[in-house]
């Protein structure tokens, strides 16, 4: 059996490395010609340095992105704490900033290996064909990641004929898998390029290796400064390309979905508005006046959007744990299912897991900065919890169902 397996592997191996017939030489035209590219400014060392930086950047984006995905779609084994309150603000800010800073890195990396796209013969053997296909997958997935991310923070969805979150998520797995395989294939070249000195061959007037790396670094830094003000408020005055300003919006706070866009304008101003608070075996209807008569608490918490912007605000309202106790459950072991008045929408409801449900900072907020919530911020009542993505901070809350945590 073991011998058979060994024979099979040897057989596959020899088939994979069997040379394929070369294509007719007459097809070797244009960029496929020998010497079609001046490669003196390119080198394995340059490519390896850019690749190493890009690898670190993609790893940071992958880990922070996966974290954001798990917080929004938690499997049974996953838990996310409610403290520190600004942790998600940092991880998601880093996700977006790192992705944007990767733009010049990826551009330079692809430029440095572009002549290899036209190597001759196009495929030497089946193994080479598979390797080239995985390179195509890597480049396509990396471009997919950066371009879809840029379009998303600019909220321009027409060029993306798919649901952004799903496309960005699965192409991230494709990129990271292809990246692992690529590092495996190229490891000897990377090792040599990074450990042995390699002379500079850039002709006069071309960017030297150091010059190119410097320019890429300046570009990455410039992009970071120009956009990071969307979450690092002190940078806002110089962040001329920030898609958001932390102080711009109704009640000095940005908004993603407006009351008009969510189609809740009639429901939220209906004098018959009641919050349905459901516990085991009973439901209570609370008017806005009833809610305002309950003990009020004030917290300073950020809204941290998946798009990388964030802003701190002062919220006042009823503690969720007080509502859980009122519904008849011990707040220490309960979770809450919070539903919006929106009739539909991907984020109309969310489950507040036990760490956030029992956290005294988690509020059903009625006021923002001392004033009643603006309709676009979730009037008459919204959820605000520490260390959670903005899409899970349900606005226009109409129903809270409290249950024992499973």
């Amino acid at each position, binding site marked *: 059996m073991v011998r058979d397996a060994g024979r099979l592997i040897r057989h596959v191996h020899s088939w994979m490395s069997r040379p394929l017939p070369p294509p007719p030489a007459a097809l070797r035209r244009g960029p496929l010609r020998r010497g079609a590219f001046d490669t003196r400014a390119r080198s394995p060392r340059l490519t390896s340095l850019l690749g190493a930086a890009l690898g670190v950047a993609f790893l940071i984006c992958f880990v922070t992105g996966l974290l954001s995905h798990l917080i929004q779609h938690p499997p049974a084994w996953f838990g996310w704490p409610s403290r520190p309150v600004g942790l998600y603000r940092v991880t998601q800010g880093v996700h977006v900033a790192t992705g944007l800073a990767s733009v010049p890195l990826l551009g330079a990396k692809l430029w440095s290996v572009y002549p290899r796209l036209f190597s001759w013969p196009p495929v030497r053997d089946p193994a080479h064909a598979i390797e080239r296909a995985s390179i195509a997958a890597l480049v396509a997935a990396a471009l997919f990641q950066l371009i879809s991310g840029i379009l998303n923070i600019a909220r321009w969805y027409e060029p993306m004929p798919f649901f952004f979150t799903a496309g960005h998520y699965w192409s991230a797995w494709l990129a990271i898998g292809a990246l*692992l395989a690529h590092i*495996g294939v190229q490891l000897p070249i990377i090792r040599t390029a990074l450990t042995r000195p390699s002379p500079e061959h850039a002709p006069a007037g071309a960017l030297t290796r150091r010059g190119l790396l410097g320019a890429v670094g300046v570009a990455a830094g410039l992009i970071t400064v120009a956009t990071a003000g969307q979450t690092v408020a002190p940078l806002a005055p110089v962040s001329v390309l920030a898609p958001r300003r932390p102080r711009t919006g109704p009640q000095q706070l940005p908004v993603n979905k407006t009351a008009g866009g969510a189609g809740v304008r009639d429901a939220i101003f209906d004098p018959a508005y009641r919050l349905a608070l459901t516990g085991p075996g009973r439901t209570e209807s609370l008017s806005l006046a009833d809610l305002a008569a309950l003990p009020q608490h004030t917290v300073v918490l950020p809204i941290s959007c998946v798009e990388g912007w964030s802003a701190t605000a002062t919220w006042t309202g009823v503690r969720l744990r007080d509502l859980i106790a009122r519904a008849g459950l011990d707040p220490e072991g309960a979770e809450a299912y919070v539903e919006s008045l929106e009739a539909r929408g991907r984020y109309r409801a969310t489950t507040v897991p036990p760490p956030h449900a029992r956290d005294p900072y988690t509020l059903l907020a009625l006021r923002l900065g001392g004033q009643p919530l603006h309709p676009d911020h979730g009037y008459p009542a919204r959820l605000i919890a520490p260390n959670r993505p903005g899409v899970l901070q349900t606005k226009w809350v109409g129903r809270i169902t409290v249950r024992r945590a499973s």
Partner: protein
Amino acid sequence: MTTVRRVLIGAGGLVMAYAVIGALTDADLKGGAYVFLVAVLVAHDAVLLPLTLAAGALIGRFVPVRSRTPVRAALLIGLAVTVVATPLVLGRGRVADNPSILPLDYGRGLLEIYAAIGLGTGLAWAVRRIRARPTGSRRRRSGGSRGTSC
């Protein structure tokens, strides 16, 4: 082939397979995502990069050799910023009832960044030329020896 390489290639292959199966079974992901995947590859490899190379060739043809390097650096930096800025400048994501989305004049912001890039590379170029001028015992170093230490 070393064990490390085998593990990396094997793990990478499995993760890619997970991505393909996950994408194919995700109801939120329709065919458009595959079109986009191929479209960005073609747009980069067959349009953007050839145009960039053509621009580089034009610099080699028309810009005097001693100012070519700063021009190349400035255009590279400018191109990277432009890629990030274009969807913001076009402003197609704006929504009538939500002025907090894309609140700035991004065209103006991009021009300001272009100006900063021009100024910065111009200054760097001037400083280098002053430093590189042979004065007494300090001789100009050859360009070839400078890049090896990075």
